[in-house]
Every structure is written in C-alpha cells, then in structure tokens.
C-alpha cells in the first residue's frame, strides 16, 4: 500500500491506529520535507490570504471609487430592474393601503345604496 509503504525509522514514529489486518499507521515528519509539504502549505496559505486581502481592499475602496466617478458615470435605474429600495413601497404598508381602500369602497357603496342620500361620484 502506497500510503504506508515507507518504513524509515527516523524522527517521530508514532503508532496512531492499528487496523485489523495488522497494518500500523506511522507518523513520520520527514515525509513532509521529502514531499515539499511545508513549502506547499505556506505558499497555499499566503496565496489565499493575498487573494482575499486584495478582494477586501477592493471592496473597501469601491464606495470611494464610485463616489469619484459619480459625476462622470452616474447610477441609472433601467426599467427592467426593480426600483431602488428608497423608491419602493415598504411591503408592510400594502395591507394597510388595501384595508383603507376596502373601507372607502364599502363606505361609498353603503352611501350609494341609501335612496335619500345625495348622488356620489363613482369610486373609480
């Protein structure tokens, strides 16, 4: 088996797990240096940090960049998209508006059904 084929008796040798078939798992730190493990790990970690740090820096500077280019390239709202949040009707007001409309309509209908009442304009 490839994963336990090497038997150098150097440095730390710890039996971590003994399987039923008698194969022991050996912990040998020289395998890390032989396989260039430290270099791979450090390179990988540094690149991940650099990439995400650059993204963070870009995001941090983006509002300032946009403020700078605003006079030349103002934000436009196309008709395909929904309006920005400050132009939208808050969703919790919709039931209130509907209730007011319903009450108004009922009031108009009730008034119109009374023969003695003066004629009211069409609700619509």
């Amino acid at each position, binding site marked *: *088996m*490839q*994963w*336990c*084929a*090497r038997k150098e008796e150097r440095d730390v040798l710890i039996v*971590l*797990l003994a*399987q039923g*078939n008698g*194969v022991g*798992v*050996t*912990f*040998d*730190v020289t*395998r*890390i240096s032989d*396989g*260039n*493990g*430290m270099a*791979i*790990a*450090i*390179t*990988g*970690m540094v*690149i*991940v*940090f*650099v*990439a*995400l*740090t*650059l*993204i*963070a*820096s*870009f*995001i*941090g500077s*983006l*509002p300032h960049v*946009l403020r700078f280019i605003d006079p030349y390239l103002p*934000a436009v709202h*196309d008709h*395909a*998209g*929904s309006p*920005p*949040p400050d132009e939208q009707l808050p969703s919790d007001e919709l039931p209130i508006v509907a209730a007011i409309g319903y009450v108004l309509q009922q009031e108009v209908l009730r008034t119109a059904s009374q023969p003695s009442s003066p004629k009211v304009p069409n609700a619509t």
Partner: protein
Amino acid sequence: MQMFVEFLKTTGFAQMELGNVVMIIIGVAFIALAIVKHYEPLLLLPIGFGVIIGNIPTIASMALSVYDQGGLTVNGDGTVTYQSGSVLSYIYFGVSQGIFPPLIFLGIGAMTDFSTMLSNPKLILLGAAAQIGIFLTLLGAMAIGFTPEQAAAIGIIGGADGPTAIFLASRLAPDLLGAIAIAAYSYMALVPVIQPPIMRLLTTRDERLIRMKAPRTVPKRERIIFPVAAFLICTLIAPGSLVLIGMLFFGNLLKESMVTERLAVTARTAMIDIVTVLLGVSVGASTQAQTFLRPQSLMIFGLGALSFAIATAGGVLFAKFMNLFLTDKINPLIGAAGVSAVPDSARVAQMIGQAEDPHNYLLMHAMAPNVAGVIGSAVAAGVLWSVLL
C-alpha cells in the same frame, strides 16, 4: 432445475459480502440522519441511497456499477468490439471529470447574497484564516504516508465545501474520490455537532456577548461590480481556481445584474437540484465495499474531522487576533463560519451567540466570513491543483 440453481448464484444474496452489508447499513444510517435529524437532507439522502445502490452485488458480466465504463477492446482475432458502460458510470462521469462541482458553484453563486461581506470587508479575512485547516491537514496526511496529491485532496475537506472537495479529489486523487466526498458531505452535515464545543472552548462568555454594528446598505452598483472584480483578482492570482470561482461569480452576476432573472432562477433552483441529485447518488454508488472499506478511508475520515476542527479553531482565533487591533470588536463566534458550509456554520454562530444573549443577531455578520470561506476554499483548491499537477 440447473438453470434455477445458476440463477440463484447470481442473486445479490448469494454474492453479498460482509462489507456490502456494512455499507448498506451506513447508507440506511445516512437516510435516517437525513429524515429524522434533518442533517443536510438534500445531500445525505441521495448519498445514502446511492451507497445502498452501489453495494448491491452485481453479475460480473453485466455493466451495472459506476466503475463499469464502456470502451473499445481488441479481440484475439484482431477485431475491435465496443462495450457500452453502465448507466451509473455515465452519471458518475460528471463527478470523475469534475463537471458537476462547477455547475453546483453556478447555482451557489446565483443564490448567494454577498451584501454582508461587501458592507464589512474586513470579515473576509476570517474566511481566509479558516483555510488553515486545509494546509495543516495536508501536512498531517503527508506525515502518515499519503502522497502530496492525496494529502491535498484530503486536506480540502477542511474547506467544508463538498463540490470543491470533489473537484480537487477528481483532479489529484481519483482513487480516493468516494471516501473524500463522503467525508466532506458528512462533516458538512455534522457542522452543528462538531463546531459548538470548539467555539465554546476558544471563547469567553464576554466575547460571545459582543454585539456588532448593523451592516450598511450596499448599493446595486457595488453588488454588480463585485463578482467581476473578485473573479479577476482570484483567477489572476490563482488560475487553478478559474473553473470554480468563474462559475461562482458568473452565477452571482446573473443574480445581481437583475436583467437575467430567468437564468439566475434556473441556476439556483432546477439546475442545482438536478446536479445535486445526480452527484449525490453517483458519489454514494461509488462507495462499493470492495474499494471503500479500507484503512485509508478510516484515516481520511479521521483527517477530515481534524481538518474541520482546525479550520473552525483557525477562524475563531483569528477573529480574536483581529480584535486586538479593532475598535469595533468582532464577535469571535463568527470566525467559525469561515469554514464555508453555507449557511450552516453561520447558523451555528447565531445559535451559540443567542444561547448567551437571545437578542444578539449574529447571522447576517456570520454570512460574511461564510461566503468568504467559499471563495477561500476554491482559491486554496486552485492553488493546490496548480502546485501539485
């Protein structure tokens, strides 16, 4: 009568080995966990059923398993015959060739809201810190005898990102793909079990009580520019992450542009569901006892747990380290969300935080390192692929 006896020899009962029985029990356990405990049911249920499918003994002459691939064979008389592969092998092609993971990333991108990350960019560093689990586990796996390629594929389990783990394993260690995929998805499902003890151990009560400022509203323009810019940054630094990062940010651009709503909806609903089903079943079916029940698999599971624990600790400790320099303190619990596993690890941060202060809402803050972790693990996979290929 003889035909009947011959038929009996071909049944699953006659060919069943102890290993197959063990794997079928594991498959049933996965299904039970998904249904009873609700542990990642969208993943564990297809994988669990796939495990059962893959461990039904088949007739050697019939192409039924995921490993029965078709191909041309040259006969003794010089003629060439073509034998078609099994249906499962064609589905598994998407896993073995790394096709499914980028498609899942497309769907993830189309459903991910990067707003919280954009509103507080310093939290991105927590997503980077949590990737330390990948690289320390790589060293541990190498020390116990795995090759650097296998060790990298095992280490990526700590990224807590199933598609990334499958993608890298299919590139660097195809022989370990089944075990790595099962380990990655199992630990993702066990996020609520693995992370809390580590988070409590590494934080004080006062730290868990830290309240963070509400994130600012992110304008549409920033949300549209971000996927394009972040894609350029990541792939110019680590071209190996091109496929995963490209699909992730392409999906996000579909969502944020608001002019391709149909495509974004398809990517985050029907498409990702179809791919998840195919991936789950075929990965599960690849865990045949004869290839899966080996000491290697046990070690992969052990190293995967280690990787996950280190990643969680790395995120929490780095948040504490950042607090040494920040005036607006970060609640270190959200550092644990840097391991990806979107959105479960963010939910765990919220849960642990609310256990101390029911009015402390950490979820939106935890989503920032959570999605940064997805980017971080994809970049890490790209780096490892580039370095070890």
